[in-house]
């Protein structure tokens, strides 16, 4: 008896399956499920733009409406990936323009996007609704103008921490008067001032506008008039938060803030002048997310502000908050889920605020039951603190600790921080993301390999003693998906012995370690489904096989060798003498 469900019924059922993880599972059940699933999937996530070709993606998912793409490895954020490495959006946009003209949403992260790309998007996708670029570069404000003028159904335009060639603020004026569909606008990373009257008109004809993130050039006074036009905002990123306002202007601004009954998220807040902080008091009780990481506000003012934010779930702040401030935050903001503390010192980063130590984080971990995500920059830490944090918060999912001076030991005992991190991985069984720092021996990595079974992403710098460290990680961390390591003293052995592991991971980044060119060649030969990229200023072929290479980026791929490698990137495919014929090229 044929128990197969008709595809129409399957389609209907699958329409309720939202998460891509579930959809991936669905597609593996059998051929007919695979076929039905692929024909109905609308949101596609490609987390490594070189893992698959755009044509293959377009072919598999004919109903694609939304595509999320990631390009450069994470360490590109810290200038470890040289310019010109890759991550170009153009081949994708070109292919999609032809094969998926109904595309509505494009979300790109760490990719090179040119003005041509933006013009192509504007010209090719008639139903285009959302463009979100995170940490992208390569385009100018002219490209933005092209999007603004042509996309008549635009809902989202967000530029998050992009590097944009700023040719002025005119681009905003290109939004036509007929555009009334805007829901989210984020131009916080741009420098030039936009014309205020154009911005006001845009905001007033956008009744659905929920998220507005201004750039630093928008004054406090201008903010007032914008808020009066958009009291329905749920997310606000202010511009510069200091000005010379008279009493009347201040009270008008205060009134405008109190009208923001739906506001849940607040960011921007550059150059905060303490005098104007009270303006925010009226929105505090409703806030769930507050980004003060650009606000150079001292501890007492921070505490005064945060004491009013009883519903806060996400807090980003600078270490100006100090231990005392974090203690106060802990008791005011019991709903806290995510805490990020950034360093405030620039000139001497390892001499940043001395009044913020491990104690601040310990306080928060003691009091906030929902705390699950931490990013913490500080100058010192202890094993005792780590043990306490782990005991207090076994529900931690993301723990990123950056003790800023490399090789810093436990400042009380002068011992390595091995035992502390052991407590973290042992106690926090659901830990998915971990960044370690401070003085660490191979033991720390033995502990991580033994206990960190759910860890998917791991970042390591200036740590360990030998190949054992890498061996522990690759052989122990079952869920490991992304590993990025810099300045650690391991060589080839562990890497080669655990080569098979690399196919189960998305990517591995190693820089300033002791992996040799010979090992890279060997790995490439034996593992055809990986791209092993050697990124080195000096061509590795001119050096002996035993010499270490500067940077290595390894990732699994179905797309074979990439065709856009610059001269400082070497893969096995470049050197014809080393058996290209052995490799399966799709």
């Amino acid at each position, binding site marked *: 008896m044929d128990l197969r469900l008709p595809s129409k019924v399957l389609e209907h059922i699958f329409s309720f399956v939202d998460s891509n993880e579930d959809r991936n599972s669905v597609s593996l059940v059998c051929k007919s499920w695979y076929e039905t699933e692929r024909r109905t999937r609308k949101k596609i996530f490609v987390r490594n733009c070189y893992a698959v070709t755009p044509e293959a993606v377009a072919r598999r998912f004919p109903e694609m409406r939304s595509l999320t793409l990631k390009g450069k490895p994470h360490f590109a*954020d*810290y*200038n*470890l990936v040289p310019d010109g490495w890759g991550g170009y959006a153009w081949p994708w946009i070109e292919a999609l323009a032809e094969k998926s003209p109904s595309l509505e949403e494009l979300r790109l992260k760490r990719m090179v996007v040119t003005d041509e790309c933006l013009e192509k998007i504007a010209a090719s996708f008639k139903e285009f609704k959302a463009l979100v670029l995170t*940490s992208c570069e390569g385009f100018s404000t002219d490209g933005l103008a092209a999007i603004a003028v042509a996309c008549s159904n635009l809902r989202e335009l967000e530029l998050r*921490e992009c*590097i944009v060639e700023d040719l002025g603020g005119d681009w905003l004026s290109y939004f036509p008067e007929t555009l009334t569909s805007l829901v989210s606008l984020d131009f916080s*990373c741009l420098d030039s001032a936009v014309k205020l009257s154009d911005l006001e008109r845009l905001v007033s004809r956008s009744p659905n506008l929920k998220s507005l993130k201004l750039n630093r050039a928008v004054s406090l006074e201008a903010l007032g008039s914008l808020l009066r036009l958009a009291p329905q905002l749920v997310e606000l990123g202010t511009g510069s938060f200091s000005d010379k306002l008279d009493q009347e202007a201040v009270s008008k601004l205060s009134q405008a803030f109190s009208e923001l009954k739906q506001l849940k998220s607040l960011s921007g807040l*550059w150059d905060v002048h303490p005098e104007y902080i009270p303006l925010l008091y009226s929105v505090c009780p409703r806030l769930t997310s507050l980004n003060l*990481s*650009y606000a150079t506000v001292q501890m007492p003012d921070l505490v005064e502000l945060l004491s009013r934010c009883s519903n806060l779930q996400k807090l980003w702040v600078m270490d100006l908050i100090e231990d005392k401030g974090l203690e106060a935050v802990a008791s005011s903001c019991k709903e806290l889920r995510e805490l990020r503390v*950034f*360093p*405030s*010192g*620039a*000139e*001497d*980063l*390892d*001499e940043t605020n*001395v009044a913020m130590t491990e104690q601040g984080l310990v306080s928060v971990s003691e009091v906030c039951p929902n705390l699950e995500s931490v990013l913490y*920059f500080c*100058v*010192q830490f202890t094993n005792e603190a780590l043990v306490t944090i782990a005991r207090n918060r076994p529900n931690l999912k993301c723990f990123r600790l*950056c003790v*800023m*001076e490399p*090789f810093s030991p436990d*400042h009380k005992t002068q011992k390595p921080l091995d035992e502390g991190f052991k407590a973290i991985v042992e106690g926090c069984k659901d830990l998915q993301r971990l960044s370690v720092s401070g*003085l660490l021996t191979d033991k720390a990595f033995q502990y991580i390999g033994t206990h960190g079974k759910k860890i998917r992403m791991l970042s390591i*710098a200036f740590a*360990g*003693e*030998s*190949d054992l460290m890498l061996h522990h990680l690759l052989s122990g961390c079952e869920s490991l998906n992304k590993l990025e390591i*810099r300045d*650690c*003293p*391991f*060589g*080839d*052995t*562990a890497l*080669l*012995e*655990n*080569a*098979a592991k690399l196919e189960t991971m998305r990517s591995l980044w190693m820089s*300033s370690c*002791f992996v*040799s060119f*010979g*090992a890279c060649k*060997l790995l490439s030969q*034996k593992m055809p489904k990986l791209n092993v990229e050697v990124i080195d200023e000096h061509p590795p072929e001119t050096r002996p*096989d*035993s*010499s*270490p290479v500067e940077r290595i980026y390894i990732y699994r791929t179905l797309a074979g060798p990439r065709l856009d490698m610059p001269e400082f990137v070497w893969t096995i495919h470049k050197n014809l003498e080393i058996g290209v014929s052995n490799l399966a090229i799709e």
Partner: protein
Amino acid sequence: MITELEMGKAESELELGLGLSLGGGTVGKIVKTGGGGGGAWGERGRLLTAKDFPSVGSKRAADSASHAGSSPPRSSQVVGWPPIGSHRMNSLVNNQATKSAREEEEANKKKVKDDETKNVTKNVNEKFQVGFIKVNMDGVAIGRKVDLDAHSSYENLAQTLEDMFFRSSPCTIGLTGQFNKPLRLLDGSSEFVLTYEDKEGDWMLVGDVPWRMFITSVKRLRVMKTSEANGLGI
């Protein structure tokens, strides 16, 4: 406990390093702070700091580098470390530049004032606010800050610093407990000397100029190992 990596053949047909002379392998102990170690890690660039901005006295970068001499590479000299995104880094640099610009402005204004009054003793009646300045000590990771306005003499200051760095208290780090006798930072008899960076970026020995002249020109302090204080008059 695994003390050696067992080198056998991997499960797959992968052949490990039996033919190729692979470099690396099990490497010796890594170099910790105090030894530089720049060579082992390859090239080191330098993060942009306010000192790189031409308008904010870039000459100081070269000067302080030569005076900093044998101190270990600070974390601010390593490429991409600490791991802060470029947008945030630029913002920090801008804050620092604005602060330095303001400091320079104030310093210039003050210089004009100084030129006008040749007699140092006349300054006694002027209320000059210096505020907190940073103090670092060789071998200690964390710097401290000291309020110069709360001090009236070199003896005063030395006492405070000795209390800060050498008396045992819960928050003193680094060399706690090693020094139980009072230190003499000013007379050259101890292992450490007190030095300062002036507004022109030069490092000088503390105690050479009258106190009031000192507090108007001091930018920050450093408790330096006597053995490293070359060319500063020891």
